[in-house]
């Protein structure tokens, strides 16, 4: 009965496990050059190590079977190789050869992949500077023309088929930048700049995650990555360069006044307003983002209101303080922030 149910569950279990290979945050579902190279090395290692492991088990089984059969027979002679040991010697020589060959293939393979990953990408790379903070990502799109630079937070948009050179810095402690579908991990270290090149080849929505434990809310430090067509990317970046939408009615204007007058503006910037704080995420186009508080919740007006009413219940320990507002002010503030598309 138990055996039958196990047999019935087996395929489902396999499907369930294999389902982990695809998805928005999977190194086994590459959507970019760097991730594809890493994945090919991973596959090579899987096959070589898997075959070697099976061989070891096979030899072990054979030796147990032999020992049980030969237990009654005459003992093997010591010192000189008896005719019975000759096949064993041959097998051992072959085994050593196989091990050396396998290790050689793995070494050459990892060397080649390492070189490919370090290679400068052809074509004009998009330059993006990512600064990790406890617990959010500051994303700056560089441009030779100063007023064409723009800043956003917790989201990374990349055009498909164009390499992006990402500068990685940290504001407080060590973090690690990891978008598994696009490439490997790279640490962000305070006081130095690391680099990572990503060349996306497939459009889609992916998820990045801090991969170095960085404090209480390390788990809630995600990055929404969007790989889109070059035209969509141009449209998005042109929109990001615009200042925030001016309040169109008195209620939104009231929310703007609350934002600028209260403590919000000490830390957050809203383009085109007097709010110019630099220590918190830039909120110029907050309502156009997919998630809130570095992936802690999908963006919605309700989630935003909850976040402002008590930031410590959604993400305990984070550095967003509770700012005392009465319900009327809070509603106006939420309406205003929700209008920042």
């Amino acid at each position: 009965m138990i055996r039958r149910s196990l047999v019935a569950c087996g395929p489902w279990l396999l499907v369930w496990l294999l389902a982990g290979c695809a998805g928005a945050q999977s190194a086994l579902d590459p959507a970019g050059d760097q991730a594809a190279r890493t994945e090919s090395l991973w596959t090579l290692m899987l096959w070589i190590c898997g075959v070697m492991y099976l061989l070891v088990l096979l030899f072990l089984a054979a030796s147990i079977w032999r020992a049980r059969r030969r237990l009654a027979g005459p003992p093997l002679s010591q010192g000189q190789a008896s005719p019975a040991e000759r096949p064993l010697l041959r097998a051992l020589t072959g085994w050593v050869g196989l091990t050396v060959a396998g290790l050689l293939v793995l070494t050459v393979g990892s060397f080649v992949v390492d070189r490919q990953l370090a290679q400068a990408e052809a074509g004009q790379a998009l330059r993006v500077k990512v600064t990790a903070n406890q617990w959010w990502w500051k994303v700056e799109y560089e441009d030779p023309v100063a007023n064409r630079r723009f800043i956003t937070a917790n989201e990374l948009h990349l055009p498909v088929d164009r390499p992006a050179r990402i500068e990685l810095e940290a504001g407080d402690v060590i973090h690690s930048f990891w978008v598994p579908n696009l490439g490997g991990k790279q640490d962000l270290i305070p006081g130095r700049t690391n680099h990572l090149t990503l060349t996306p080849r497939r459009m889609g929505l992916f998820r990045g995650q801090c991969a170095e434990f960085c404090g209480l809310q390390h788990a809630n430090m995600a990055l929404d990555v969007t790989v889109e067509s070059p035209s969509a990317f141009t449209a998005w970046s042109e929109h990001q360069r615009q200042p925030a939408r001016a309040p169109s009615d008195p209620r939104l204007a009231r929310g703007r006044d609350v934002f600028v007058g209260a403590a919000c503006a000490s830390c957050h910037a809203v383009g085109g307003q007097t709010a110019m704080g630099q220590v918190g995420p830039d909120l110029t186009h907050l309502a156009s983002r997919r998630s809130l508080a570095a992936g802690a919740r999908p963006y919605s007006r309700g989630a935003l209101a909850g976040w402002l009413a008590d930031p410590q219940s959604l993400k305990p320990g984070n550095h967003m303080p509770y700012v005392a507002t009465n319900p009327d002010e809070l509603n106006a503030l939420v309406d205003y922030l929700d209008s920042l598309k």
Partner: protein
Amino acid sequence: MKRGSRTASLLPKPECDLTIDAPSIFFPRAPFPTRGDFVRQIITATIVAACLTAAACDRETRAVRAPTTANGVSGPVSPTSLRAGGGLALPPVDPRAPLYDGNAYQISEGQRYYEWFNCSGCHAHGGGDVGPALMDDEWRYGGAITQIRASIAEGRPNGMPSFSDKIPDEQLWQIAAYVRSMGGEADKLAASSRDDHMRATPPNNQAKPGPEHGDATAARLGAAR
């Protein structure tokens, strides 16, 4: 066979008369105290002592929400009557003060916000610049945490702006706790042991507190503490 006779009965019968002194952890307990009992008592005492020692580990209790023992908005009446050239009455005791003054987490948060809100722009990292030094023992407007918080919230003459609308109350307390730790006034176990910038003086948890003088002007006027 004088000791451990019950013990010995479980084992194969010895050929000669060996006294087996087996640890009582593995064998049934003897009806009288053996060395095993003594060892067991030592182990128990050690475990109890370790638990008691661990219970004393209260260097830091992290409260992610601000303590709500008092109204967070500062009222029209200042908690300090100490003004430049004025009297020296101590401010009313605020029940929140010790929660910030002796807590490592709150002080380290204050250290973070000291940079974020650009206190270092005028006061440097404690040595003073356009604003007065914070790591000495001179306090123009009082060195109690309530007084420091009031100075940040209300602002003071000759350049110190009021931050009560710009910095939430919890952060004001945290910054005040950090400022106090700069001069070595805060709890030594809670003060920060390092900074992220260069400094020529010992870390805050090794700073030696001096006597609190209060305002030099007030002292000159002869007001007694």
